[in-house]
């Protein structure tokens, strides 16, 4: 009995989406749990399980046909492929299939769906087992959640509160279930019937643990054992926000900052079940009897929409041999058609990119010959793509490299102005090194900041308590209106004022990183050498410029609960500045350089590494510990100039910015935007990401990729026969980039279900997440403001390496193999030896050639995007 329940719970746990507190927002595939299936099957299954759209609607795809995002040729090709896979069809039938694809579904003649040849198709359905909630909805028009959820949401947010409330829930260390039992075990005379029933039920199960309560309730609801799993899934999925949080707390206990909170999924399920069971038991006996007869309920979801059937019916009526065309319609279900449309939509884009890549290699791309003048190591992030283009633009000898933004340093970091250690490395790695920032001088300033912090803290408390509240109102009430007015009238000047004061304060602050010396935080010499050589090996850095800048990145914005989703993914949603600073410090050390020499990396003595930080929202660039050298100053000014141009390119996507501004205005605008209370779109983050190139930068240097590509540097000629470097890169890049890409994909496709809807009514709850307005479930995924300009392409991963090496790696690396084989990402390989392009189709790499495809060319970087709001064509920039 209870083993059944435990088994069911285990499966439920696997299917539920998870998301940690917003502070640790990590992009991941929304359908992560279905990755073992092929993409198409997962969409089909997920559509049923999660009840959200997984593809665009057909009318939207048809619109793409008119705008040129889908070409008719690719569409026909895809229809052909699909029909060939599902049976043998002659050319007439194919012609017919094209016809009904291009015809818009006709909703004006829906009556036609009910008659004619295709009438039986109307009964083609897939069924889903539903339980009490749906039965109540159907039978009595009562929504159970409307009744029970206010109580549950209030309880969960109080229990999991990480520090908003002034009084935390007393004695919550006894656990979720026990607390629930205590707080709802008694009812008042004002309680309604179901709350009384709930307290009765709780008293009845006072001694029982979560599992036995679940079994008890399931038993009381008279469900079959086979239904347990689907019922528990349905129940938990209705409360997926809090469920996801609890699952993430179970997985990452360090995210839960309050030790007295016990996150336990079984107790969570037990609480939900108690509430639902109590409600159902409080119904009148007649209703209960009727419900018992109805549940489990089979809901039929039609495979064909009426509008489509109507228009197909009309088309089929015009044909002579009607029987012949019926099987064609029969396999073109709504889902299949959408999927074919989507394939065509993606294919068009992939071809555009691949042909461009090939063309560029044939014509312009050359390996740089001249000695490097400046080298910049950036994160592989797609937002750095344009930034890097503008850095490179400034000279032949300027090179950029892309590498995961934590630079291989798996650390936990605590700055002088941060409260806790925070891990700055990918989500999957457990960091062991503790790095701190130490104040060299300016203790008094630190103390001043401490006072300011106390003031801020008192002010936040002030809104919660009576006397302090009154005090702070009179103290800050009138000044508040001035500061608010300034930030509303001109966010830019407000940010400048703030910056001015901050600089006054910070000017004398000198800090350094502490990473050796004491026993707990020591990074030994050989580890430093390892870290250093890893980075150099990964990006294939052999020749060194006099100045090498290492840039971490992050994002700063106001009024944005999802701020950490804008930060560096490789740093686990943190800002990558300390990693860059530490890495440059390591590589500047004499002893490290000597050891690196033994490994074959000759770093000239006059080469200096400078750590920095790029704010992708405001396009500010900060530098750490800069040496007083002329070439460093030149390098920094070059990078800042590039950042301004980058701001201009970003601004074209914001509809509230005129298209005619110049780069300086754009930079000011972005600076203001990042300090703007009224801006729900501080930046567009990873929106429009679609590509990932793993290969030497010179191959893609002249390409205008419109901020769509993750660019990872990799030098195939320096790699060994087993391609160890490539393996290391792919094991990180594959899951991370596909996670970002697929989260955007699903949040775009159905923002209400997989995303968190509009940002405007969001309300921060318990410091862990957001809900809608007064009360709702925690919202998962990305907001509509983040994904509105996204193009839902799956990631195209282009690896520059010998074909056989990639094939061997694919066999070896399970995680990548699953992604590629199940089509969650598209893989293509460019073999530098024989200059061939291969694409992974079905089960292997097939050679393809796009050299005869037309490609786009732009005379300059500016010309590629200037004056355009919508997505630009990818193209080659001719100098």
């Amino acid at each position, binding site marked *: 009995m209870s083993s059944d329940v435990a088994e069911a719970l285990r499966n439920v746990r696997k299917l539920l989406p998870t998301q940690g507190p917003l502070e640790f927002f990590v992009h991941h595939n929304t359908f992560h749990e279905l990755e073992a299936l092929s993409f198409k099957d997962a969409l089909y299954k997920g559509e049923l399980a999660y009840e959200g759209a997984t593809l665009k609607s057909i009318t939207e795809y048809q619109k793409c046909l008119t705008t040129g995002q889908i070409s008719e040729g690719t569409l026909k090709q895809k229809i052909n492929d699909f029909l060939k896979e599902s049976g043998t069809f002659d050319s007439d039938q194919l012609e017919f299939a094209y016809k009904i694809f291009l015809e818009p579904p006709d909703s004006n003649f829906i009556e036609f769906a009910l008659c004619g040849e295709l009438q039986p198709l109307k009964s083609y359905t897939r069924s889903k087992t539903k339980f009490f909630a749906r039965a109540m909805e159907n039978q009595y028009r009562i929504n159970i959640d409307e009744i029970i959820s206010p109580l549950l949401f209030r309880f969960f947010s109080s229990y999991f509160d990480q520090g908003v409330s002034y009084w935390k829930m007393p004695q919550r260390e006894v656990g979720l279930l026990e607390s629930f039992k205590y707080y709802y075990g008694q009812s008042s005379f004002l309680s309604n019937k179901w709350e009384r029933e709930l307290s009765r039920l709780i008293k009845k199960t006072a001694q029982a643990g979560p599992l036995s309560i679940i079994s008890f309730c399931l038993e009381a609801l008279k469900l079959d054992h086979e239904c347990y799993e689907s019922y528990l899934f349905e129940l938990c999925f209705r409360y997926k926000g809090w469920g996801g949080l609890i699952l993430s707390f179970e997985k990452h206990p360090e995210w839960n900052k309050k030790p007295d909170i016990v996150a336990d999924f079984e107790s969570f399920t037990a609480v939900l079940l108690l509430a639902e069971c109590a409600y159902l038991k409080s119904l009148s006996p007649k209703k209960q009897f009727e419900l018992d007869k109805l549940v489990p309920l089979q809901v039929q979801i039609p495979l064909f929409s009426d509008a489509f059937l109507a228009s197909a019916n009309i088309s089929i009526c015009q044909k002579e041999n009607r029987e012949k065309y019926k099987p064609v319609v029969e396999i073109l279900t709504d889902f299949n058609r959408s999927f074919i449309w989507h394939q065509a939509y993606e294919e068009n884009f992939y071809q555009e990119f691949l042909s461009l890549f090939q063309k560029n290699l044939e014509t312009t791309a050359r390996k740089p010959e001249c000695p490097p003048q400046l080298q910049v190591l950036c994160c592989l992030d797609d937002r750095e793509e344009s930034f890097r283009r503008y850095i490179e633009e400034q000279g032949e000898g300027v090179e950029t490299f892309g590498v995961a933004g934590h630079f291989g340093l798996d650390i936990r970091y605590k700055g002088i102005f941060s409260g806790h250690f925070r891990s700055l490395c990918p989500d999957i790695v457990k960091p062991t090194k503790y790095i701190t920032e130490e104040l060299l001088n300016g203790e008094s300033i*630190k103390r001043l900041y401490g006072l300011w*912090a106390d003031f801020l803290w008192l002010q936040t408390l002030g809104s*919660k308590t009576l006397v302090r509240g009154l005090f*702070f*109102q009179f103290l800050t009430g009138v000044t508040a209106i001035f500061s608010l007015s300034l930030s509303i009238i001109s966010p830019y000047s407000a940010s400048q004022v703030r910056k001015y004061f901050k600089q006054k304060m910070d000017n004398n602050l000198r800090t350094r990183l502490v990473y050796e010396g004491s026993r707990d935080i020591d990074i030994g010499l050989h580890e430093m050498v390892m870290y250093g050589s890893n980075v150099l090996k990964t990006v294939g850095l052999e020749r060194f410029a006099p100045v090498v800048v290492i840039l971490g990145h992050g994002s700063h914005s106001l009024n944005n609960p999802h701020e950490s989703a804008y930060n560096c993914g490789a740093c686990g949603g943190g800002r990558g500045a300390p990693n860059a600073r530490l890495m440059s410090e390591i590589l500047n050390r004499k002893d490290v350089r000597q050891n690196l020499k033994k490994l074959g990396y000759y770093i000239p003595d006059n080469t200096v590494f400078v750590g920095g930080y790029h704010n992708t929202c405001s396009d500010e660039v900060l530098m750490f510990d800069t040496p007083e050298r002329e070439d460093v100053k030149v390098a920094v000014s070059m990078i800042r100039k590039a950042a301004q141009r980058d701001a201009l390119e970003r601004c074209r996507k914001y*509809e509230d910015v005129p298209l005619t501004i110049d780069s300086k205005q754009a930079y000011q605008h972005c600076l203001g935007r990042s300090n703007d209370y009224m801006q729900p779109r501080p930046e567009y983050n990873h929106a429009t990401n679609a590509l990932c190139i793993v290969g030497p930068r010179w191959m893609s240097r002249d390409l205008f990729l419109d901020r769509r590509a993750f660019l990872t540097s990799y030098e195939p000629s320096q790699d060994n026969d087993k391609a160890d470097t490539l393996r290391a890169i792919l094991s990180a890049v594959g899951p991370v980039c596909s996670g970002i890409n697929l989260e955007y994909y699903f949040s775009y496709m159905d923002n209400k279900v997989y995303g968190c809807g509009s940002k405007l*009514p969001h309300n921060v709850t318990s410091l862990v997440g957001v*809900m809608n307005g007064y009360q709702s479930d925690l919202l998962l995924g990305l907001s509509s403001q983040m994904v509105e300009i996204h193009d839902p392409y799956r990631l195209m991963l282009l690896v520059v390496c010998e074909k056989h090496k990639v094939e061997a790696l694919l066999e070896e690396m399970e995680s990548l193999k699953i992604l590629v084989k199940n089509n969650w990402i598209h893989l293509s390989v460019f073999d530098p030896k024989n200059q061939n392009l291969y694409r992974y189709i079905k089960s292997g790499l097939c050679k393809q050639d796009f050299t005869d495809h037309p490609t786009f060319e732009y005379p300059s970087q500016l010309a590629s995007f200037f004056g355009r709001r919508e997505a630009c064509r990818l193209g080659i920039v001719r100098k």
Partner: protein
Amino acid sequence: MESTLKFLIAYLILSGFLKSSATMLFYFSNWSAKAGERFIQYLVNLGGTFELFIVLTATVASVTKIFPRQISFGDLLNIDFAIIFNTDPTSLTYILVSFIVIALVGRFSCFYLHKDSHYYKFFALFYIFQSAMVLLILSDSFVSYFVGWELLGISSVLLISFYSERKGPVHNSLRVFTLYKISDILLFGGFAVAFSQSHFQLFSQFPQAGIEPFSVYMLLTSLAIMIKMGGFPVIWLPRAMEGPTPSTAVFYGALATHIPLLLFINLWSGAVVLNWVRYGLMGLLLLIILMATVLVRISTDAKNMLANATVKHIAIISIEALLGLFTLAYVHLIIHCFYRLFQFIRTPSLIYEYHEAEGLNGGSFSETGTHYNRFLPLSFRKSLYRLALNEFYLMPKLSRIIDVLMGLTNRISRKKIIQISFFNGGLLFILALLQLYDIEQLHPTLFLLIPPWIFALIALLYNFRDWRNISVVLLSVTSLSSIIFYVDEFISLLALTLMQLTLFSLLVAIFNFKAPSFLLTHSFTKKQKVLLFIFSLWLVGVPGPGTYYLFEKSIHLSIEKDLYLAIGAFIILSINTLSVVKNYSLDEVHFRRNNV
């Protein structure tokens, strides 16, 4: 000088309506969203600056005593009612405060709501709210104050249900609207009582009144204001936190909760009242403060916490007024208004601010509220927490009652609706009989209310669509106005009622049996629905013919005939307003569900 002032005040009142109408015109025209947004940006920035300039000039002029302290519009509009506005420095200072807030939030919203699907809706309501503010602050006469009061209610409620495609906001907005309507009835009752006793139409006349009727008037008005400020009968303000952040900020953080309090302070500053009213209200406010302070302390999300805190502090300001500290109350009101506005606007930054403070401090802060552990035993704390977690069991109970009354959670069957309506009609009938017996004179007082009462209940409870709803409301309104016009001719009234009954049964028959398919399949577009909604709201609500008649006739009526008839008629109009709003807001939710 007076004519200049008149022009300025008229401009301030009308500019909101004009801007709102311009926004609506843009909504109904086929301009692109981009052009519309640009137009509204001009409206907000230029209009806001210009108005601020005017208000500033007026305030300065008023302080330097160039302007008269009161101006009258009554002769202009050709109605029996005195329309008089205060233009003393205090009122104009408050106008200045609200225009600063409105200008700031307007500009904020231009950017914040950029590309939102309800962009126009926000600004249309926002500017109606602006006019309502001017009326509320400046009015010295009942009528204009009441118009402002109702406009404030309807605009803020429609902004709660801003995201009308989700159920939660719509339901919460209807709950709040029901409370607002109760407050309208109380306010109207207060005015009617005052008017029937002493024929006063201005607030400033009251200090001269006798104590006894004045106390009833003060009690009713104060309760109405306490409902509007979010703390009475229970703390409902958190439920209004459904709209986008700027609308929550300007309405519930700042003006909509604060400005009604201005009347409260004004009233009490000139009041000679029975002490039990004063102490009773003070006790009530203390209770509210006590409950609110506990609720603030256990709130776990940004907006609920601030909403509870707002209620708490507004109650404190009211107590200041009751204690006679008027200057303090005036200043405190302004300061609190700004302070909360700022806090509400920054609610999405909560996580960031929390971490910033923690980081600057260099570690976490010590746990809050632990000093209570010393003198409150654990069992007491737990019980208190349980009470607070359930919102003292009060608001859930109240919202359940409202849900049942409005038919929100449970669909009431047709049979039951008819039963309820006729049962209520019967009750009214018995009441009327009793009254007849009491007064011993034959006058069709309460009998008159029976048919419109039944129609109104049916319209409220039954989820009619589009025309059906409107027809029932129409019926109810016509029968109501028939009371007002035909009050002396009992027989003609009877005939009219009978006629309406037949009309009603005909309508029911048409819509319940199979009507021609063009009628059934014809559904309104979204824009048509908005038009229809505005029309029917105008018909039953304020400022519309329904209320105009009420004020014109029924207050006169109440002097001659029966006070309860006027109040009863107003209650019926309120129910009609409720059902119009309910049908409009629920329409989209249900429509969506049917589609899915």
